[in-house]
């Protein structure tokens, strides 16, 4: 029978996570409960990629709705995980798996294969990738850089689409 403050203290690095990500104490406690219920084998990490609780929270922090009224904070806002450029970077890294700053043809092919499985033939897959690169690649290097990626997402409201409605 403890209070919520003792529950937050039982979570390692909770204060630091709150600073970094901007989640409230109640959110962190709640996410910790969720993490423990997903971690059925009690290893302290999820799935084969060994995501521990801190990484879990940091990844989810990208999906916090972006706050608008912090203009006076200036440079500090750039550090928060849920600002627009960080969200875009997160989405970019879903494609760019080797983290070389460019989405190559093979990477696009790999991601599309995961999304489509056996439902399309190899030729159809190649033609889809070809068309996508043609559309997005502006400097002709046969790969999509981060700026080109941002341009192709210019019309999408990234702040809204990449946010999960965390309740207050």
């Amino acid at each position, binding site marked *: 029978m403890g209070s*919520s403050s003792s529950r937050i203290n039982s979570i390692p690095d909770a204060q630091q996570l709150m600073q970094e990500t901007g989640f409230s104490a109640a959110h962190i406690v709640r996410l910790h409960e969720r993490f423990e219920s997903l971690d059925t084998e009690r290893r302290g990490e999820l799935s084969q990629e060994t995501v521990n609780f801190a990484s879990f929270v940091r990844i989810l922090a990208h999906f916090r709705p972006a706050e608008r009224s912090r203009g006076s904070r200036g440079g500090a806002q750039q550090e928060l995980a849920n600002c627009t450029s960080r969200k875009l970077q997160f989405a970019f890294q879903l494609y760019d798996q080797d983290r070389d700053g460019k989405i190559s043809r093979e990477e696009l092919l790999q991601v599309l294969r995961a999304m489509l499985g056996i439902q399309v033939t190899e030729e159809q897959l190649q033609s889809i990738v070809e068309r996508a690169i043609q559309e997005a690649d502006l400097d002709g290097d046969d790969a999509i850089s981060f700026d080109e990626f941002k341009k192709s997402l210019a019309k999408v409201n990234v702040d809204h689409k990449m946010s999960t409605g965390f309740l207050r």
Partner: protein
Amino acid sequence: MCPLMGLLLCNQIIVQVQPPVHAMIWPPVGMENPIVACCQKVRRTAAQCQRSRCLSISITVWLTFLLVFFLAPAVLGVSLGLHRLYVATLLNVFEWVTLQMKMTAKEKNQQLDKPWRNGIIAKEASLSLQQGIQGFRGPSNCRSGFQVADILYFCHSGVESIVDDEVTKRFSAQELESWNLLTRSRCHFRHVGPQLTVLWALGILIRYGVLLPLRATLAATGIILLLILTTLVGFLPSRRLRFFLSQKVHLTCYRICARSLAAIVTYHNRENKPKNGGICVANHTTPIDVIILANDGRYSLVGQAHQGLLGMVQRAMAKSTHHIWFERSEVKDRHLVAKRLSDHVADKTKQPILIFPEGTCINNTSVMMFRKGSFEISGAVHPVAIKYDPRFGDAFWDSSKFGMVSYLLRMMSSWAMVCSVWYLPPMSREGGEDAVQFANRVKAAIAAQGGLVDLNWDGGLKRAKVKEAYKEEQQRLYSKVLVSELTQGGDDKHSKEENLEG
């Protein structure tokens, strides 16, 4: 003269005999210790007699209490009305607890934590994949085919499901709105002041000191009685007499077991109760569901033959009434199962079969997919909805956390097990409906009556991984969105198809 002389002589002998006895009891100094030891022994024995008398008196009182207030009403089927009073008192206490917590919160200038019963996030209404992807591409972008922005849709849905999904939370205990003085409930204990702590300690004393021993004794009595009496009845020669008596025996023992778990049940719509033959289906939360339903009707049970205590109980029950116990090897043979069930149902003299089509225990906030096996048998199906009140104790059996014995002890040390049972009117398969659609229709009726969420997910996901077929279905839907790029035109046709599917 002679008798007088004889009497005088006797007196003299007595007087002569007495002094030595006196000498034994009050000896001169030197012979004290053994006598003191003897005195002490006598005193100790007297004390022990006193203690054992106390013990026997208290046991007698206890047993009389048990007999008068629990066993006799169970045998006669009469209710003393004490349970309603108990429940009403507890509800008043819980309201007071909530008030206290609100006051403490106000003093600290904080809000009382509102439980996020609908999850930590607010989810938008679920759309089909086609509509979802279109929403992510942006309103001005109506080109078909692959867009780099598509990945945002999958990413967003994925993260939403990771943070909160409809299925995994059904396999753990339900969260309560306000505290019910049990530390085992999932609740926020932020504003518990000293008064509530005292009340909680009192609650522990009552539950573990009075309620638990009482209920455990009752349960033991019930099981022993069941075993003995069903075996005895099984020996009777006359079939009709055996049938008649076994029903009475079963009913009495179920009543005793129900009282031992403090089950306070309200039955609704009893006119819809299944009579002979037919199948009865219900949502499954705990093995106690069987006892609760059997308290108000006679059912044949279906299940796997177990070993140990449960196996003994099963064999004892099978001696006097018809139950369908399967060996482990037979369970896999679906035709055999179906045949045995159909034979039983067709025989109108037999009792209705009780089946839990979910196949596993769910936490009583939702009803999950019904296995179609029991709906393939011809005949009417009688649905029953069971809803437990979570304020008095969590009835859900989380088999990954508790074994059977620890679960029963938890139940006996909760406040009570308050539940409502609704008998729904019988349903039959309509023309053109297959078993799966019929099962879903019955499931929707049960969910609507019990106030539960109707889910199409399989309860087997509690233990098994998701089948690849689900992932392939999503891939198929997405490929339809993309492939329209390769086949010019036909977008409208595709979007119409998606709307029908989604």
